[in-house]
C-alpha cells in the first residue's frame, strides 16, 4: 500500500516550519513519528499535499525537570518516556502508560507530541496527561501559548491546536506533596487501542488521606473524561478498599460511551468502574 503522492519538506528550524505552514496552509501536515499519520495516509484516509517532517529540528525531544515542572519535548518517543529514570521516579503512571502504547516497534517511532496532537479517542497518553494536569506548549510565528489538557482535547481527533501552531512540549506539574500515579488499560485484543482505560493521580497527606484526586477515563467518548464523581468521593478520605470501591462505582456517572462492534455501551460503563478501581488501587499501592 502506498500513500498518495505528496511533497516532502525537512526543515531544520521552527522558523522554517512557520514559513512552510504560511506557504501551504491546510494542504500541509506536520510529521512527527508518523505512526498515526502514515497508516492513515496509506489507507488514503488523509491525502496531504505536503508533509513537513519535524524530525530534523534540534531541541524538540528530551526530558528534563525544571523546578516543579517536568518538561517533555514533543518528539520524545514512547520508548524514551517509558525508559526514563526521571519519569519512572517522578511519574511512574506516565512511564507505565508509555510502555503499553502499540507495540515495541511503534513505541520506538511514535512520539508524545504526535499522539497528543492526533487526539485519537483510543489513545493512551491523552488520558494520563489529563490526569496529571499537563499543559501543552503551542508555538507559532507569533510566539506561544500553553493550553491545559482539560481544555486541549475538544472532540474526536480535534484539539485546540490552530493550523499555524506546533505542539512543541508537554509540561507536567510536580506537586510538592507526594502524588501517586497509575494507568490501567483494557486494550482491544487485535489493535491494542484502548477499549476502556483509567488514569489516576492521587495526592496524599502525612496521615494517608487523599487531598487531591484526578481520575480520568479513556475510551468512553471523544476526549478523555474526568470522573468528577469519583474524584469527589476520594477527596478527604483515607483510601480504604471500601472508599475506593464506592468511588469507582461512580466512574460511569455522566458518561455516554459510543458502542462499537467490540464493546457495547453497557459493557463500557461496567469496565469504566472496573478500570477506575484498578487505577486507584494501583496508585494507592505505590510506595
Amino acid at each position, binding site marked *: 500500500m*502506498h500513500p498518495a503522492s505528496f511533497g516532502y519538506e525537512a526543515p531544520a528550524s521552527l522558523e522554517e516550519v512557520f514559513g512552510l505552514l504560511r506557504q501551504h496552509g491546510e494542504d500541509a501536515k506536520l510529521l512527527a513519528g*508518523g505512526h498515526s499519520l502514515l497508516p492513515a495516509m496509506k489507507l488514503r484516509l488523509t491525502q496531504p499535499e505536503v508533509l513537513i517532517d519535524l524530525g530534523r529540528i534540534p531541541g524538540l525531544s528530551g526530558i528534563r525537570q525544571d523546578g516543579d515542572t517536568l518538561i517533555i519535548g514533543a518528539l520524545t518517543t514512547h520508548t524514551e518516556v517509558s525508559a526514563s529514570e526521571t519519569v519512572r521516579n517522578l511519574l511512574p503512571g506516565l512511564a507505565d502508560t508509555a510502555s503499553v502504547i502499540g507495540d515495541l516497534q511503534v513505541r520506538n517511532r511514535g512520539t508524545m507530541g504526535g499522539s497528543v496532537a492526533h487526539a485519537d479517542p483510543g489513545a493512551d497518553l491523552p488520558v494520563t496527561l489529563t490526569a496529571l494536569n499537563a499543559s501543552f506548549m503551542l508555538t507559532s510565528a507569533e510566539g506561544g501559548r500553553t493550553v491545559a489538557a482539560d481544555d486541549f482535547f475538544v472532540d474526536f481527533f480535534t484539539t485546540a491546536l490552530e493550523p499555524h501552531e506546533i505542539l512543541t512540549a508537554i509540561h507536567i506539574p510536580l506537586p510538592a506533596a507526594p502524588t501517586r500515579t497509575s494507568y490501567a488499560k483494557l486494550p482491544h485484543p487485535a489493535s491494542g487501542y484502548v477499549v476502556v482505560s483509567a488514569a489516576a493521580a492521587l495526592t496524599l497527606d502525612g496521615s494517608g488521606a487523599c487531598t487531591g484526586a484526578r481520575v480520568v477515563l479513556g475510551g468512553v467518548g471523544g476526549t478523555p473524561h474526568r470522573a468528577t464523581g469519583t474524584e469527589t468521593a476520594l477527596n478527604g478520605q483515607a483510601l480504604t478498599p471500601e472508599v475506593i470501591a464506592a468511588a469507582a462505582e461512580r466512574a460511569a456517572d455522566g458518561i455516554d460511551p459510543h458502542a462499537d462492534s467490540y464493546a457495547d455501551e453497557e459493557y463500557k460503563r461496567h469496565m469504566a468502574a472496573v478500570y477506575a478501581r484498578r487505577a486507584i488501587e494501583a496508585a494507592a499501592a505505590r510506595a
Partner: protein
Amino acid sequence: MEHPARPVNVTVNGTSHATEVEPRLLLVHFLRENLGLTGTHVGCDTSQCGACTVHLNGAAVKSCTVLAVQADGAEITTIEGLADGATLHPVQAAFQEEHGLQCGFCTPGMVMTAAYLLETRPDADDEAIKHALEGNLCRCTGYVNIVKAIRTAAQQPR
C-alpha cells in the same frame, strides 16, 4: 501534481547508498525493490504484523511505517546484515536450534525484534520477551518455540 524526488543517503548493512526517491516511497519498498534486500517481508502492510522489522539507527522499527526519506542519514540493519559472515547471529542460531519457525514468513521480523530486545535488555525473561513480541505476528502460531529460541539466545554468553 508531480512532487520532486528527494535525496536519500543511507548505510544499509555497512554499505552506503546515495540515491533519490519519490517522497512517498516506504522504507520497506526501498530496501526490497531499490536495494534488492528481500529478506525484509511485507505482511500486513498496516503496522501490525512486524514482518518488515529492521533496525534504524539501532532501534527496531516497522519499515512499512517509515518513509525512505525519513531514513536519510541513517544506519540500517536488515536480516541480511545480522550474521557475521558465515557465523549466524546468536538469535538466528537459537531459532535454528530451537526450531523457532514453521513457514518462516514472520521469521526475519521476529529475529530482528529479538536481536534488538537482547541488545537493550540482555536479561529479558519470558514475560519481557512476550511483551517485546506484541508487534510481531506468527500466523502458524508457533510462538512457544519462538519464545524458547529467544530465551536460549539470551542465555548465551556474550
